[in-house]
């Protein structure tokens, strides 16, 4: 079914749309046949979508054994499991590093643990959209055990040098969890070569899956204790949850159609080529930034985003007004507000919020041109005397 009117969808950093045809087909196929269960009586015609998805993600992320890829509901779920599980394995009282670039999926679990007196937390500032390895190194204390940071900002589109930061942390014995919610699918990731201990991802963004799927990769499963227990379809005679991978972190029935979609989405990205995806994104983001920068009433918060995410405000208009006009007058879907990243906004716009345009592989050059024209038209009609951006 087509939308009731043509829209230009530029809210892909929230959830990508449209999805590749392969993803639609995979979900339909998955729902059309009985669920596959190895060694069970549930049928033999269906595909083992869980294994397919695990292999697809492991291959795509360069993750080594597929069993070290764990499926969850989304990146937030993954980050909660990793953070809570790290404390469960290593005990309370450690010092944890994170950054002001984080989404609430990182900030809230950590703040809650700090509030409970279970960790000491340091939030590192950023400059020009990135946190430097030197800033990380200077913040490490003898009791620092964990660092959690984003691979790419969901507001600024800035990509962090997780390789350099990971080296610093590795040298000091600090466990490094990276939030890849925005980056996975947009930029090539090869976990075998990165000094990272765990990498969280979500299915419904640049991997082109559907909402309700995500996961994480973990190098050494022993470093994180499981915090969820239940049925796994294996070792069912024992009342203790199995400790082998991936069951260690997975309990309950999987999201079969969601994982079928994720496998198809990751397959699409792999076939298209992460390099080609990144190159197109860079070109289109540069075009949009260039257009918006020509308008004196527009403030762009990152001139060189590594991901196709453009954050801006229009002087004289509230960001919600800009988003409303984009949607109602031009049919352009953006995202306004603080994007669940309050500390980024405190740093760039006083915590007020901004408008975000975010692209995907399916965004056309024409759509970028339309969006640029629309924002420039809005900016020319705004009254800069009404307020300041």
């Amino acid at each position, binding site marked *: 079914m087509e939308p009731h009117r043509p829209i230009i969808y530029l809210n892909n950093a929230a959830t990508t749309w449209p999805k590749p045809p392969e993803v639609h087909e995979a979900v339909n196929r998955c729902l059309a046949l009985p669920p596959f269960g190895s060694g069970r009586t549930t049928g033999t015609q269906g595909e083992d979508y869980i294994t397919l998805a695990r292999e697809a993600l492991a291959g795509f992320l360069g993750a080594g054994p597929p069993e070290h890829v764990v499926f969850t509901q989304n990146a937030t779920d993954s980050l909660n499991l990793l953070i809570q599980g790290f404390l469960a394995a290593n005990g309370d009282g450690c010092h944890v590093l994170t950054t002001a670039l984080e989404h609430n999926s990182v900030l809230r679990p950590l703040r809650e643990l700090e509030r409970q007196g279970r960790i000491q937390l340091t939030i590192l500032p950023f400059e020009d959209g990135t946190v430097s390895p030197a800033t990380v190194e200077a913040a490490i204390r003898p009791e620092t055990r964990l660092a959690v940071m984003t691979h790419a900002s969901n507001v600024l589109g800035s990509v962090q040098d997780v390789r350099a930061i990971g080296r610093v942390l590795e040298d000091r014995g600090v466990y490094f969890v990276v939030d890849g919610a925005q980056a996975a699918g947009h930029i090539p990731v090869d976990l075998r070569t990165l000094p990272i201990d765990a990498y969280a991802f979500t299915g419904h963004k640049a991997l082109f899956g559907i909402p309700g799927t995500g996961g994480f990769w973990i190098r050494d499963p022993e470093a994180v204790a499981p915090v969820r227990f239940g049925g796994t379809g294996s070792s069912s005679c024992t009342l203790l949850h199995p400790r082998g991978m991936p069951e260690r972190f997975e309990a309950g029935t999987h999201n079969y159609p969601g994982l079928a979609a994720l496998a198809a989405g990751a397959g699409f990205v792999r076939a298209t080529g992460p390099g080609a995806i990144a190159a197109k994104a860079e070109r289109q983001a540069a075009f949009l930034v260039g257009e918006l920068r020509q308008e004196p009433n527009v403030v762009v918060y990152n001139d060189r985003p590594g991901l196709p995410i453009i954050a801006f405000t229009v002087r004289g*208009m509230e960001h919600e007004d800009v988003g*409303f*006009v984009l949607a*109602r007058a031009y049919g352009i879907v953006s995202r306004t*507000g603080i*994007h*669940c990243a309050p500390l980024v906004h405190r740093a760039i716009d006083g915590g007020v919020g901004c408008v975000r345009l975010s692209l995907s592989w399916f965004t056309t050059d024409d759509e970028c041109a339309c969006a640029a024209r629309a924002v420039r038209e809005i900016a*020319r009609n705004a*009254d800069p005397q*009404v307020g300041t951006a």
Partner: protein
Amino acid sequence: MRILRSVRHKACADGSFMKEFLLDGPVTAAFFAYLADFGEVEALPGLGEGFYRFERADWFSIRGMAGDTTVEVRFNRPAMDLTMDFVYALFGLYRDGDPDLAVLKRREQALAERVGKRLHGA
């Protein structure tokens, strides 16, 4: 003006609530001029057929494009249970450009006291 359908959304920035109203006819510049009796109205007439925003501090705001049958209403959460009925009255009593302002003004005055007491203790 009848509200045919309302869809409730969350607004993440400040915890306020947003409702999108589908109306039985398009909003007009005259409608927002009528709203100016109850709060501040800002207009950017050069955008499309005109962009309008009504704001009643502490109560709610209404955004709309002239000629469009959909408007966005954002409620200040602490007073939302008190003010929601008044929003419906603002739309419902605007009939053929001839609203009963006396009725609405009485309701507004009564409501202002209650909202003021709740939010500011006065």
